[in-house]
């Protein structure tokens, strides 16, 4: 299948190889949560809700009582994918992604400022069209900022792949299921540090460097957008306070 048209250079959805899908973010969508956000990357829609810092519910889980306990759960709605899924929680992929998101966010949260407490991050996928992992991390960053949890930096994530000898930014579901390599990168935007790096399939080293570089550029673009959204939100809150 032709993922990149040789004549025009367009992908299956009409984008150029280094073009990201349309981003849309909204803060404060779940009223009861301490912080929440809705993040859309093209057709992938994700809601993240943060509850915390609050008292530790289960002392047995606490490893280090000088820092906060960060927990994360990733769930996909049954209608999120094209074919209806059964058992949207508890399967291996969800457990793996929950772990990945938790580790990525833990690198940024200043846990030692909140000892003996727990922070819960819940991510719910409403529509899955490739790049759910990245959308979840971006949504979680916004939700944590909305909850006022101190962080070192904004964590953003983006995926990139390599099909038809071209590095492609922000794969959608069709491109993702092509079986080519899929590199997901998560960075701390201003500090320029990588907190997440995952890849499926194989890539030669020099190609990998160009694909990863493309993904990092995508992450930085998302960080700019997230900063804008947070600034808008803060201005709105300031107006409401009077």
């Amino acid at each position: 299948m032709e993922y990149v048209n040789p004549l025009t250079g367009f992908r299956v959805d009409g984008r150029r190889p280094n073009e990201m899908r349309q981003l849309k973010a909204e803060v404060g969508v779940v009223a009861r949560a301490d912080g929440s956000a809705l993040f859309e990357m093209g057709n992938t829609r994700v809601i993240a809700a943060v509850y915390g810092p609050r008292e530790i519910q289960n002392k047995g889980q606490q490893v280090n009582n000088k820092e906060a306990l960060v927990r994360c759960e990733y769930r996909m709605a049954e209608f999120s994918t094209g074919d209806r899924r059964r058992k949207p929680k508890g399967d291996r992929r969800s457990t793996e992604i929950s772990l990945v998101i938790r580790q990525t966010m833990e690198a940024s949260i200043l846990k030692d400022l909140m000892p003996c407490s727990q922070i819960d991050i819940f991510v719910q996928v409403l529509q899955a069209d490739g790049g759910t992992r990245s959308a979840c991390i971006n949504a979680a960053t916004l939700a944590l900022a909305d909850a006022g949890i101190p962080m070192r930096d904004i964590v953003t994530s983006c995926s990139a792949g390599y099909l038809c000898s071209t590095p492609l930014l922000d794969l959608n579901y069709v491109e993702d299921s092509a079986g080519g390599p899929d590199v997901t990168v998560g960075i701390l935007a201003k500090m320029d540090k990588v907190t997440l790096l995952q890849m499926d399939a194989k890539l030669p080293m020099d190609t990998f460097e160009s694909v990863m570089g493309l993904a990092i550029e995508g992450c930085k673009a998302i960080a700019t957008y997230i900063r804008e959204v947070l600034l808008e939100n803060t201005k709105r809150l300031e107006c409401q306070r009077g």
Partner: protein
Amino acid sequence: MVGLSEGEKHFIRGGIAQDIRTDGRKRLQFRALSVETGVIPQANGSARVRLGATEIIASVKAELGKPSILHPDKGKVSIFVDCSPTAEPTFEAPFQDVLIPGRGSEELSTELAVALQRCLLGGKSGAGAAIDLSSLIVVDGKVCWDLYIDGLVVSSDGNLLDALAAAIKVALSDTGIPKVNVSLSAANDEEPEVDVSDEEFLQFDTSRLDPSVIFDMISVAKHVSQQFIGVLDSEIAAAEAEADE
């Protein structure tokens, strides 16, 4: 979850007695309801309902299946409810190896799903059903439509049943069942060939779905609780009168 103190409970009851609730509504007043359809493009029908801060997303998916032997002229409808942990931290799935105080959302989801099933599909014999299952049949005894209705609780601020029922009703009215062409040349015991059209859609018939039936169910609960509150008030007043003596 922070509980309510005795003072707060007294305050709330006192307010109800004067027809004022804590958010300023009257006793019989609903919160603002907002409805949006077509939120899930890949489903046959979908809706998103907001009742105050409660938010529900419902989706309807239609797949071809085999009708049950007991009812060869009827399609099948199944309703599932999923309470997302974003709505309430206690809805989180309990881990396998560690005991967590919240039981997760299994009980609540099942309870809501069963209540909605009774409402929409009626009792065991199909009496009092709101959906006409015979409209879902394609080939008698061989092929029928299976409707999977999924309700997702995104944000929970009370009155989940009402919001879920409204979301399902709207999602069903937004549902388009694809038109099918059945090839008549198949032999009697063979599986008939069914060609599902990608283009044409028939609107699902929801004229028999009466939302007032569902809302009445909830109104009764409120009346009951009013009576209950009334009884409580009079008992409190009686107890206080005795104490004064």
